[in-house]
Every structure is written in C-alpha cells, then in structure tokens.
C-alpha cells in the first residue's frame, strides 16, 4: 500500500486494516511482517520519522536529535539519574544499536514458567525455532576479521589471559566494514536494522506505514480494541499536524517500547493493576584501558566482543563498546587543562563495559508532562554485582596490557595502575558514584498467568480485552542477562504466529 509521513493540520487521515501495530522496533516490525506474510493487511504506526542511511546523522548531536526518544533526555528517577536510551524512528532501537544477536538462554524459559506461569519448554522450542529463521533472514554472522578493530582484539586477548569464556559477537550485519558508526545508524547499510528489511516488506505485502505519528489512544468498542488515534508530529519543528485514525478490523498490537507501551495502555483506559510494574534493565558502565599503542576504538565494529561467563553468577555480561570522540570528550573525567591533557590520549583508549543483570524492579509512571517517568534505584545487591563487573573489566584491561585503567567512578582515582585494579573491589556502592546508562529495558506490561500480577498472557493477549496484544519487550517479565533483541523478535513472531493460527 503506502507510507504516510507527517501531514499538516487539515482533514483527518483515516485508514482501515486487519491489524494495527503500534511501534516499528524489534517487536513491532517483526510482528507486522509475520502477520503480513500470513496474508493479513497490516498498518504500522510509528511515532518517529522514517530515515534511510542517507538520512542518518554522523555526529552524536545529530543522533540525539534525529534518532533518540526525547533527545535521550529520559532518565531514571531514583537515587541516581541514569539516562534511558531508546530509538524513536522507523526501525526503533534496531537502527541505533549494535545489532547483537544472542539466543534466549534456556534458564529464562524455566524462570518464566516458575515465577510467572508462562514459558516452559514448549515456548522455548518455538522461540529457538524462530531464532533459527531470524538468523537466516537477517544474516546473523560473527564479526568478520576485517571489522574487528584493535579494541575488540585486545578484549579477546585480555579475557583469554584472565581465563573466562569470551567470544566475538554474532550480529545482524551483512559484510560489516567496521565503520564504527553503529550508534548513529549504519550509513554503509550493512547493519540489518528493521527499517531496511521487515518494514519495506510489510509495504510490499500490501501494508501501510504511518510515520511521524505518535499514538495517543487506543480505540475500543466495549472491551475490544478497534484502532488507534493520534496527531502527526513534525520531526523537526515538533508541530502538531492532522489527526489520524487507523481502524483495526481484527486487532491492535502494542509495541511502543518498555517506557511507552504501559503509558499508552493506561491513557487508553485499560484497567490492570500491573501496568507499569515489573520494570527491569541492564544498567551498564564502562572502564577504560589506556594502552601504549593507539587503539583507535572507532575503527572496527562498535561492539564486537562479549562474554556471558558471569551471567548466572554474580550476574553481569561484558562487552566492548566504542564511543565516538564527541561522546568521549565529555565523558572523560576532569576539566580545564587537565581534561584537555587527558583527551590527548583518546587514540590510546579502549572502552569495555559491564551490563548488570540487575534484580531490582522499578516502575514506569506518567510524569507531569505525560512523558514516561521510570522510577528505578539499584539495590545494594545489584550494586555489588555492578561493581564486580567493573572489576572484571578492569582486570581484563590489565591482562590485555593496558598501562593504566580509568574507572571513571566518583571517589576513585582517575588512573589506576594495572597492579591496583583490586581497589575497584572497594569502589562505592552508591549508584550516584557512577555514570551509567540503561539500554536494555524489560517489563511494564509483563506476561503471566495471573491477571492480578500481569498485563498479558503467554500469547501476548492483554487480560480481559479482545483484539489487544503486546508485542515488545514490555511483556518480558525478567531480566535476560543477554542482549534482548533476538528474544524480543522471537517473542513477537511467536505471538503473531499464534494470532494467525487463531484467525
């Protein structure tokens, strides 16, 4: 059918399809293409604009302006203000992430079954079968030799020397050149973000994409979801445009993100005590290593190395992550001449991160301005995990040959010598001592058997409503401890196949 972008104020835009999918990220795009392949006419409604590689920004400033939800200014409310990073464009966070593909660990399905009455071996088999398909469709491959870069190689060397399992990443990338621009969108079009494949396929199969179109309300007839409404918003001027109404003959799938899906359900009048509850995340923080020879971390895959050796106990994962100079410049500690002196060492820095498999549970609420407010403060146990992860990263740098370790923790020295990394074991447990970000988010519309404690069932159907489904990470009731995109996509496809089977 067609793509409808921003429409200025004027006549209402009206469409009618079999299914309406709110959101076009990992969950929404996968659900939409699955339904479209099953012969359904699908409309995808996306709050942000549709940008192609030629539209992608190059600077960090441009990425914040053009790609991040609310300019990246969403942050946790709690003891510490930690930014929450989410994509806000067609393709969602798949455009700005590092395209990491990790299969859902088996213990997750056991945990879901034990704690929430969903999941179990049947779901595991279905999801893994789907993940086989996703890996074929989206060209999942290990980072090729040419794209490794020195930072990823050093991480491998260090982890091998310390002696824990580690590997180069499997990613949804076809022929990576190692441009180091994953976070600003892959301008060389190698990354298989979903604005480049599934969303165009939805169009080819007779569907519709409505972009620049934040949904303000889901429409109901009785307890049946029958469509969505909102007003177009211009991506640059932020001005409101025409009203749109997209009617759904068969159902509405909500995949607006962990922070936005719960708010949308609440604003639409969905009655459920669990809405917004069960928020979880992988809070992450880096440790820099300073090396004698240039590392040039922006050469090579942005995230090309990982380890999940510590996923179960103490509970964190490790990854390389290269940030561009325009992000690092403000991130290195210090000011004035001292800061400028430290920045001269930029080419010699490698940055690796720990992402904590936190057990802390937070909540998504609506702020005074209608935006999501995530209430979340890491517990002491999680902070111990968090700190342990940073120590292992530091030890890995030391083993890789770093001449100094830069922990960037308030209350710690700027530099530690390799034989001083044990000092990190005594680093503060106050979250305010760390500059962390939350990138992998879960919950807010969690799935479960009990309607008192969950928003949707194990097929994504919202309890007590007809034709209303969840199809994003907001349904995931636990922290995965691995990168979530593969799980989100498999869950969305699994549930969409269920919808097709019922139709």
């Amino acid at each position, binding site marked *: 059918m067609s793509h409808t972008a921003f429409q200025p104020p004027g006549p209402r835009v009206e469409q009618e399809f079999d299914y309406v999918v709110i959101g076009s990220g990992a969950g929404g795009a996968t659900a939409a293409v699955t339904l479209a392949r099953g012969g359904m006419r699908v409309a995808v409604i996306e709050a942000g604009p549709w940008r192609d590689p030629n539209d992608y920004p190059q600077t960090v*400033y441009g990425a914040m302006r053009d790609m991040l939800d609310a*300019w990246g200014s969403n942050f946790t409310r709690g003891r510490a203000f930690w930014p929450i990073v989410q994509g806000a464009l067609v393709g969602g966070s798949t455009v700005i992430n590092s395209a990491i593909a990790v299969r859902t660990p088996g213990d997750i399905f056991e945990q879901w079954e034990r704690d929430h009455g969903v999941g179990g071996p049947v779901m595991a088999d279905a999801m893994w079968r789907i993940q086989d398909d996703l890996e074929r469709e989206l060209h999942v491959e290990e980072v090729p030799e040419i794209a490794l870069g020195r930072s990823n190689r050093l991480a491998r060397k260090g982890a091998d020397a310390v002696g824990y399992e580690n590997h180069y990443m499997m990613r949804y990338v076809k022929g990576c050149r190692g441009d180091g621009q994953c976070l600003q969108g892959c301008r060389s079009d190698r990354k298989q973000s979903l604005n480049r494949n599934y969303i165009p396929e939805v169009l080819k199969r007779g569907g519709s994409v409505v972009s620049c179109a934040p949904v303000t309300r889901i429409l109901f007839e009785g307890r049946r979801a029958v469509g969505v409404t909102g007003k177009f918003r211009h991506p640059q001027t932020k001005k409101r445009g025409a009203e749109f109404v997209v009617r759904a003959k068969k159902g509405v799938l909500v995949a607006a993100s962990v922070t936005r899906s719960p708010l949308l359900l609440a604003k639409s009048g969905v009655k459920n005590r669990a809405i917004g509850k069960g928020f979880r995340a992988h809070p992450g923080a880096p440790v820099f290593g300073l090396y004698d020879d240039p590392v040039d971390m922006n050469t090579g895959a942005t995230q090309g190395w990982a380890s999940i050796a510590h996923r179960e106990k103490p509970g964190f994962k490790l990854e390389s992550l290269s940030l561009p100079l*325009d992000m690092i410049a*403000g991130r290195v500690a210090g*000011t*004035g001449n001292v800061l*400028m002196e430290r920045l*001269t060492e930029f080419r010699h820095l490698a940055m690796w991160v720990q992402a904590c498999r936190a057990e802390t549970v937070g909540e998504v609420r609506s702020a005074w301005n209608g935006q999501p407010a995530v209430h979340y403060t890491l517990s002491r146990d999680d902070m111990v995990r968090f700190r342990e992860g940073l120590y292992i990263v530091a030890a890995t740098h030391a083993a890789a040959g770093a001449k100094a370790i830069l922990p960037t923790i308030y209350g710690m020295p700027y530099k530690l010598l390799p034989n001083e990394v044990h000092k990190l074991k005594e680093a503060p447990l106050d979250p305010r001592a760390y500059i962390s970000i939350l990138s992998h988010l879960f919950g807010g519309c969690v799935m479960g058997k009990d309607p008192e404690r969950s928003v949707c069932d194990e097929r994504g159907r919202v309890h007590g409503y007809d034709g209303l489904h969840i199809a994003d990470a907001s349904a995931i009731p636990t922290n995965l401890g691995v990168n979530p995109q593969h799980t989100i996509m498999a869950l969305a496809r699994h549930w969409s196949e269920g919808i097709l089977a019922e139709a």
Partner: protein
Amino acid sequence: MFWLIKFAMCTMMPRTDALPGIADTDLDGFLRKMKSESEPLYWTGLVLGALVFVITPLITIGVPLPAFFLPMGLLQKHAERILGHRIYLLRQSALLVRLSAGMCWGADQSVRARFNLPPYGPDPGTFRTS
C-alpha cells in the same frame, strides 16, 4: 543565555598547546542549533547547569563571587571541584555542561584531524516524506 553557557564550556575545555579549545570551534552555531532543536527539558538543564556553575564558587572554593570574576587559577579549581562535588545534583548539572561541550568540540573538523579521524559530514536531518 549563550554567554553563560559559553563561559562554563570554555572554562571546561580551554585551548592548550596540544589541542584546540572549544572556543576554537563554532560554539555559537552549535548553541544556536541546540537551542532551537533540542527538547526543552535538555536546554533548560543546560542553562541551569551553566547557571549553577557560575553561582557556586562560594560552595566549592569559599569565594563569594560569581565565577566570572575569579582569576584563572581559582576558576579552574572551582570547575574541578564542582565536577567532583559531593552533592550529586551539583556535579550532575556541571556534567551536563561538559557532555554538551564535548559534543561540540569532538565533532569539530580541526579537533578530529588531531586524532586522525575523518571529518564528519553534515547531519542531514532528512526523512522520508512519502
């Protein structure tokens, strides 16, 4: 409010023998763009961060003067202390100024050249309209 933000940013990222300072970049253009394009919450936070930087020498170094009137040595000491202050809100507000300064400085062509990085092209800001 540009002068306020510029003062804080130029204090944090001065020119040195080895590197250009933020004053050597198109900071005015950057701030104009940021004011018109950023979320109001972000811009407000930046202005407040710069304001806090200017009015807090009494708290950081015990000098009852706005930061403008401090000699260079004391100004640097103030900047260092506010970014490492025990009051979280104070150091976070200064951090927002430094992060924003870094975005401007690190994207500048002359700065990038010093690090053997290719120049950035424009951020087109374009999107599909049909």
